[in-house]
């Protein structure tokens, strides 16, 4: 799937590994949190980066000790009307202090791009090729926001700020 | 209600640009007065009407198409359900607004023209 990040369309090198699958020797792999925890506990032998995918009803805190070993977290949007991942992303960026990449996957609209970015998402999986141009253009837009990026509560001093 | 009446349907929707309630007429396409709508009684025609609705929605002419059960007496088509009845008329508390007003003024134009 094409990914948009930093305003560009990039190739996706990450492999999603199901719980029952073998972990390859090399490559950037995305595991479920439970699988990732086991894998790291057992020594983590492959060459490549580690990522995790968190379901909408899961608590990002379950990744706890792994957070500084993970480079990518994928959050899912079961429907574009399901807003749970916005909170998960905010939690990861805020009190969990996650510094890696947060990726949006699933049913998302380009009109939601600004909201997602402001909650801490870095990259977005686009399912419909027709929308590439719109996504790229929208990425460049900087909107006014009452809430500072990934700091939705900060009202003082941000009122003159622009998001981004 | 007589059984044969509940088999009679018209296709209705809201026009995308202005939200106005419309009905399907094969010749005139989307009309604003239900009395001008095509009625369908047999399953094949009803199936056809459903398709018309889907296509028109995909073409962004209308939104929310659906079939309305009606009774037909001479030239008067009336929905069976009160909600659908009001939808063909306008607000009962403002007889000067909505289709009910347009129908009256249409009539007046006809009378004036005679």
């Amino acid at each position, binding site marked *: 799937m094409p990914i948009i990040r930093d305003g560009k369309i990039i190739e996706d090198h990450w492999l999603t590994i199901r719980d029952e699958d073998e972990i390859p020797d090399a490559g950037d792999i995305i595991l479920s949190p439970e699988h990732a925890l086991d894998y790291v506990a057992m020594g983590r032998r492959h060459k490549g980066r580690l990522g995790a995918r968190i379901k909408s009803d899961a608590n990002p805190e379950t990744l706890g000790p792994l957070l500084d070993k993970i480079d990518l977290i994928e959050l899912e949007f079961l429907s574009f009307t399901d807003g749970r991942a916005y909170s998960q992303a905010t939690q990861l960026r805020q009190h969990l202090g996650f510094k890696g990449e947060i990726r949006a996957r699933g049913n998302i609209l380009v009109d939601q791009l600004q*909201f997602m970015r402001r909650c801490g998402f870095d990259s977005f999986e686009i399912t419909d090729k027709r929308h590439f141009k719109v996504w790229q253009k929208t990425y460049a837009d900087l909107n006014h926001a009452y809430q500072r990026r990934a700091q939705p509560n900060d*009202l003082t001093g941000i009122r003159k700020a622009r998001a981004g | 209600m007589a059984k044969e009446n509940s088999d009679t349907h018209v296709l209705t929707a809201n026009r995308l640009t202005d939200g106005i309630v419309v009905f399907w007429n094969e010749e005139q396409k989307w009309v604003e007065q239900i009395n001008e709508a095509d009625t369908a009684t047999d399953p094949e025609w009803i199936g056809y009407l459903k398709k018309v609705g889907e296509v028109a929605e995909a073409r962004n002419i209308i939104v929310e198409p659906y079939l309305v059960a009606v009774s037909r007496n001479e030239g008067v088509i009336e929905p069976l359900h*009160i909600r659908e009845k009001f939808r063909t008329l306008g607000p009962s*508390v403002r007889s000067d607004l909505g289709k009910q007003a347009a129908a009256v003024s249409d009539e007046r134009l006809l009378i004036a023209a005679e």
Partner: protein
Amino acid sequence: MYIYDQFDREFVLERVAQLRDQVRRRLTGELNEEEFRPLRLQNGVYLQLHAYMLRVAIPYGTLSSKQMRALADISETYDKGYGHFTTRQNIQFNWPALSDIPEILEKLADVEMHAIQTSGNCIRNVTSDPYAGVASDEYEDPRIFAEFIRQWSTLHPEFAFLPRKFKIAITGAAEDRAAIAFHDIGLRLKPNDLGEIGFEVHVGGGMGRTPMIGQVIKPWLAKSEILDYLQAVMRVYNLHGRRDNKYKARIKILAHELGLEKLSEEVDAEHRKIGVQGSSERQIIDLKEIDRIAEYFASPDLDTQSATLTDKSVGLNDPDYLLWKLINLTEHRHPDYAIVNISLKPYGGIPGDASADEMRTVADIAEQFSLSEIRVAHTQNLVLPYVRKADLPALWRALKASGLETPNKGQVSDIIACPGLDYCGLATARSIPIAQAISNRFKENGLEREIGKVKIKISGCINACGHHHAGHIGILGLEKNGQEYYQITLGGEDADGAAIGKIIGPGFSFAQVPMVVEDILKTYLDNRERGEEFIDTLRRVGVNAFKEDIYADH
């Protein structure tokens, strides 16, 4: 009142440009209806029974003469010459074309208004006391924090796709005039034992199919903590509110299913995390910021306002004027001033509707007599907050000249009614003509004065937008066998001592309802003791006494 600065203006214009583009993409088909729907809802655009409907936000029910005039102009240019004031202090236009909406929003932006988040699964208009800032029983003007919360919640990126809509109300007086008990979050500014003003936080109130009264989740919260605490509540709701069933998706259901204690723990836990070391999320509101916003709501210097020319020839003993004074005025915190209630419930009229001319008349009167400020009450009436007592005769004459002097505030004909099946795509029955029939009946039988205060509320379906659950007399419009029929509830209350009305028995036909209401109120007159209002007698003798009287006759 709050004045936009450069930032606010740019913000709204940006939103208008975004919607203009979204409408364009919808009309060309780049966006289909399923994708467009949540976007248009975020800008208050509904598809209703006859046409689109646009709901314009009137933040905490405060607007200026200039804004009211703009609403009048919009109603004439883009609609059918009238608007409807709602039970959440907003205004609705019933006939806008989608293709005109971007232009309408531009006109609104010109006068610092918008339609952002007046529908959809997001945080809606923060409503408040229509007498905020001028009520004699006020601890603190709630609009300061209403404005804070408005800014904080506007296009808040984390909470744009909640399980369901979210409604916040805030009050700052001894008497609750904002119906906080029936909101998802109700905030009550009040002093603690040390006399410090803070928030009592209620959660999980609501109307609809499962009416519930909010519970106190936090007895007292420092003002500076409110945004962090709200953040915590919203996050818990966003993550754990039900998304499987539209009718079980409000926070009241979550509160009910978890229990207040567990919900409170979850919120506190989240609230603590917001303050975790290293997190830059925590933001105790700076006192300077509170003061800055408070300045906008500072009471104008009322003592130095010169009285406008008063017309002595009105006849201060005019019985109509005296009656209007008795019924439609509310005590002001300043001894030389009065709060004027303008009824939008003329006898036999459509509750809450105002024509373009009426809107302009109110704008002019407000400009002349009320420092150009108007309030919208959740009772679907208007309020003038700064009227000198000396100006009352002239003001009344101006109202009378335009038919806006109906002296029925809080009386039997001051009925709250949702648009119902005359306008709404969700309705099962009509509500407006029921209100009209009741109003006309009591005009005829001459009992309105005798009866005094009573709250009648009518909803045209179980979604309860007419707040019938909170009516002293509640009327719910349903449908059976193709006929409208109406269920009566008694004993609801939306103010302090909040209560949900009880159904009294089988429903009544359209024609029967005014007679039933008359019977109920006659039973009250027969049973009342000195000084009792309807609700007092009802509470004392009980619903069953009324039930027996009604069903004996019908």
